[in-house]
């Protein structure tokens, strides 16, 4: 028996000697259709063959929300993945719940301060990666909403395709000219936006910020500003597009409905993510252009996308290995190549100084518009209970779009629902006063 045990021990030791590399796993989601999963696997293989210290197994974990659930479950079970590509609007919850570790110590080992580190990324993506001055995530892929419009429809309506609408007023005027009706029914909508859960909250936050508002408290996760003039005005604008100007269809249109209406000529302008650029390029049969989302008081678009995080509960060895992977994936060359493949923009600014990236931008003017609009990028909505708090607004905006509620009362209700969800956190933070 003892012989057997020592033989087993010897075998184990041999195993670990032959396998000097640290084995880690990496969770990644694929939020859009296409060949992204294969490309991610190829990139990780590139990392594995570039060095011998770390061996990474990439694990495809579904959509952003699925990846969040699987990561939470793995952390709770005491077997966290070493690195995760996490939707940036969950970052604050991970920091609040202490499910992701601050990366400051790892950054310090590379001889950088957290400030100097995060300054390598576009200003718009920084707030969603940091919390109270600590870096929790490294931005990897990002997008913003953008206006897509049909060149043929513009010409037919007597509009100049080189001069897309810039303000909300011009937007409404253009949409009226572009709309075609048969009785009460729209045969070509002047404008459509994606109104399903998740995207609707994202777009509404953009309209609110463009209308001068702030939408949520950027410094603390316990407050949202739904029942304010800027939000009510933005929602009234959406209501008017449907019920006053009648240039947008009533009810809720999801991403499929919006994209197919645009492809078939049943929508002249749409608002969708820059992440859909590749999809639209592949499927739109007539010429199209993209432009900044028109503004009310100021240009403002919310940032979407994902950052790389290290969940709590990993050993220092695994942390170091994960950091090595993260550093590789967010290097200008790798980050830039992922951007060209997917259509996301590269958050790492230096990626755009590389010749291959300059080449790509020159060949794809629509990608340039997306990058230029980034100057007006604002952080993504992030609070305690982000999804539920966002849904509180979305339920009400959907009711307005369906003609079942009026903006002012709808936003009062949304505020009430959101406050109830935020209450437990508020009680433990802002209202927890010295005894």
């Amino acid at each position, binding site marked *: 028996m003892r012989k057997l045990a020592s033989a087993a021990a010897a075998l184990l030791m041999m195993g670990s000697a032959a396998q000097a590399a640290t084995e880690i796993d990496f969770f990644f989601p694929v939020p859009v259709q296409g060949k992204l999963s294969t490309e991610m696997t190829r990139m990780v293989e590139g990392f594995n063959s570039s060095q011998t210290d770390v061996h990474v197994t990439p694990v495809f974990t579904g959509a952003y929300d699925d990846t969040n*659930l699987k990561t939470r479950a793995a952390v709770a079970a005491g077997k966290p993945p070493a690195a995760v590509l996490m939707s940036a609007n969950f970052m604050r919850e991970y920091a609040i*719940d202490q499910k992701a570790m601050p990366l400051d110590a790892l950054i310090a080992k590379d001889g950088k301060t957290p400030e100097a580190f995060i300054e390598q990324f576009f200003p718009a993506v920084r707030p969603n990666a940091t919390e109270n001055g600590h870096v929790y995530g490294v931005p990897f892929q990002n997008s913003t909403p953008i206006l897509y419009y049909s060149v043929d429809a513009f010409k037919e309506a007597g509009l100049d395709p080189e001069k897309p609408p810039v303000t909300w007023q011009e937007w409404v005027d253009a949409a009226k000219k572009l709309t075609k009706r*048969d*009785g009460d*029914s*729209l*045969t070509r909508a002047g404008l459509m936006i994606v*109104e*399903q*859960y*998740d995207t609707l909250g994202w777009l509404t936050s953009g309209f609110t910020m463009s209308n001068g508002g702030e939408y949520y408290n950027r410094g603390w996760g316990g407050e949202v500003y739904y029942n304010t003039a800027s939000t009510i005005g933005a929602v009234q604008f959406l209501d008017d597009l449907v019920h006053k100007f009648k240039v947008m*269809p*009533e*009810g*809720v*249109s*999801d991403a*499929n*409905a919006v994209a*197919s*209406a645009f492809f*078939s000529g*049943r929508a002249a302008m749409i608002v969708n993510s820059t992440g859909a650029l590749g999809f639209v390029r592949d499927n739109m049969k007539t010429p199209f252009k993209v432009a900044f989302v028109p503004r009310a008081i100021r240009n403002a678009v919310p940032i979407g996308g994902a950052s790389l995080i290290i969940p709590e509960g990993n050993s220092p060895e695994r942390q170091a290995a994960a950091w090595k992977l993260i550093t590789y994936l967010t290097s200008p060359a790798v980050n830039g190549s992922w951007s060209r493949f997917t259509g996301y923009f590269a958050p790492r600014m230096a990626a755009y100084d590389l010749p291959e990236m300059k080449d790509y931008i020159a060949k794809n003017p629509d990608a340039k518009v997306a990058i230029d609009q980034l100057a007006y990028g604002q952080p993504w909505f992030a609070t*305690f*209970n982000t*999804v*539920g708090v966002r*849904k509180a607004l*979305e*339920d*009400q905006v*959907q*009711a307005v*779009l*369906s003609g*079942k509620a009026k903006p002012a009362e709808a936003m009062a209700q949304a505020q009430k*629902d959101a406050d109830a*969800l935020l209450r*437990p*956190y508020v*009680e*433990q933070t802002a209202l927890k006063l010295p005894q």
Partner: protein
Amino acid sequence: MTAWLLLAPSLLFLAAFTYWPVIGVTLRSFTQQRYGQQASWGFDNFRRLAADAHFGHVLTNSVLYAVGTIIPSLALALGFAMALRRPGRLATVLRTVLVMPQLIPLVAAAALFVFVFLPGEGLLDHYLAYFGRHATNWLGSPDLALWAIIAITIWKNTGYYMLFFLAGLAGIPDELIEAARVDGAHGWRRFVDVILPLLGPTFGFVTVIAMVNTLIQIDHIIVMTGGGPSDRTNMILYYIYQQAEQNQDTGLAAAATVLCVGGLLLLSVLSLRALERGIHYES
């Protein structure tokens, strides 16, 4: 002793994956603990559930969904079973066709139906356009979305329930129907007074299955509407998921689970009782 040993493996699984979770979720439903708080016992979760307007909507939707799917799909299933109970080449083909939807996973069917219901370009609107109907936002209108979901559920389940009725009908002895015929009972009389009572056990079984289905079949809702617009197609199970996973409020989720599993248990017992009262079991 041998009996217990033979039972042990399944008992172990039942205990680990059914009984223990049932006890766990019941305990959790009476545990009051929200973000950063100490845990204590009480009815707070149930109180919050009763006060939550969303839970009210979800309950209403679930009842509509249950009534709207169970009655038509059972009626259709029984009708098809009656029409196709005699063996024959055509009957076999038609039976196969009717059971086909059962072979497609609900989530895959839902992904296809998204494109059937697409406003304007979808299959449904494409054909309705011949009748002069304009594009309809089937899944995006709060007045239509739930009915679209109900229609898919009926399409999906009818064939499955028909199989049970076919089996039930095959178990009815021909002599009884013959005897009724000799006594001068017409087709409808024979159906109401002979066949239906004899199908009692089948009805009891299928009704319970159908009720459980309305609780657990939400795959298509997740794929097609996400519970929207404005919670109009949200169901109890998805609500429980939202509370537990999106809002990290496992107390509320546990309370909702206990309430709806308890309610379902009660309904199942009641419907079995009611249906069995008039049931004739063969000895």
